[in-house]
């Protein structure tokens, strides 16, 4: 039912992985080109405002370094999202320790969203961003993985380390909150 995301090559992810393992660097290029935009979007949706390209690169480096542990039980993109999410959370923890600041990341993200909203405050996109920003971190992750990437609840649960049922509840709660924020 669900089509492959943003196909840039006729080969499947598994075929490209096999080709890369055999020494074909063009297969790696195809894989990166296929999944990098989604990883970039996901990083932004997680509140990553700077060094997005660095995060995406680290995600690929880590993924290709442990490609043998990819069992293909889920899609490669889901696996990449999981790695990227863990990387971003690790970065945040490291930043917090370095700054010795206990303020939560949502507050930082809200400030940056506010700055963006100054430009597009009256526009629909600005209101949507504000509405999404009011969600809890987990709700926002689930909601944007579902809406932006079209991931199933099972895949989302795998990425965020939750259950399928919990992911479904988070999505519907987020959807309700966004609607209320926009239309009420």
């Amino acid at each position, binding site marked *: 039912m669900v089509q492959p995301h943003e196909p840039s090559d006729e080969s499947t992810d598994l075929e490209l992985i096999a080709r890369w393992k055999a020494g074909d660097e063009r297969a*790696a290029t195809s894989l*990166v080109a296929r999944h990098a935009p989604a990883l970039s979007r996901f990083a932004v949706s997680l509140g990553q405002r700077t060094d997005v390209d660095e995060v995406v690169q680290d995600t690929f480096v880590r993924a290709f370094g442990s490609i043998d542990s990819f069992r293909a039980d889920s899609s490669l993109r889901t696996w990449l999202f999981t790695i990227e999410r863990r990387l971003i959370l690790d970065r945040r923890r490291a930043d917090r320790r370095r700054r010795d600041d206990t303020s939560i990341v949502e507050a930082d993200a809200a400030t940056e969203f506010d700055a963006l909203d100054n430009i597009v405050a009256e526009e629909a996109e600005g209101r949507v961003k504000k509405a999404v920003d009011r969600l809890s971190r987990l709700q926002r992750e689930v909601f944007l993985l*579902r809406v932006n990437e079209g991931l199933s609840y099972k895949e989302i649960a795998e990425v965020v380390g939750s259950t399928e049922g919990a992911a479904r509840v988070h999505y519907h709660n987020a959807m309700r909150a966004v609607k209320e924020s926009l239309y009420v």
Partner: protein
Amino acid sequence: MFDCANVEMRELLPELAAGTLDAATRALVEQHVATCAECASELETLRLVKSAFASAPTVDVGRIVAALPKPASAPRSARGSAPVRRWMDWRVAAALTMITVGGLSVAVTQRLRHGNPNPPDSRVAQPLGDTTVVARAPSTPDTPVPRKDSMGKGVPRSPTTVPAAPAKPQLAFARGAGDIDEASIQELLALLDEIDRSPVAPRAEPDPTPVLPGIKQSDR
């Protein structure tokens, strides 16, 4: 603000917004959305969200690929490992040959120095691990078995040492290699029958369920 009662269609709206549905399913969902105000409103919200978060920093694919680790199983250059492996193969083969030749020469030397280890009177020698069971024919006066001294030379047999007892199978143990043949098995079975007929042999079979310490007989 109500939700559509058609849960199946409503659940597919995010995938419709994300553009990940196949053509047939997409047509079905779009047909439903065209007749359902709630789903149409929700789809509009979803598309707003998608467009709001669609823009993301572009990444340099070439730089990422250049930073990737090399695959572990990638074929190495022809000059890399092949000569080393061939040299190792030769070394292993030479070591095995030396061990084999050395072992054979030691065995031949030992055999020449000590002569034939098996005594000529042993009819059959069968190994049982390191120990060999040797079945000997009972000695009779008309078939004297020549004895040997420590040097292996024959010693004349004294006529007074010949036993007059009835012929019985006997077992002797010697060191050697080989399997038990059929005749020896028959002799062993005859010996076991004789042990069974002995008056000191127990008449009853042993209890197959022995009493363990701490367990009462009534508990079993």
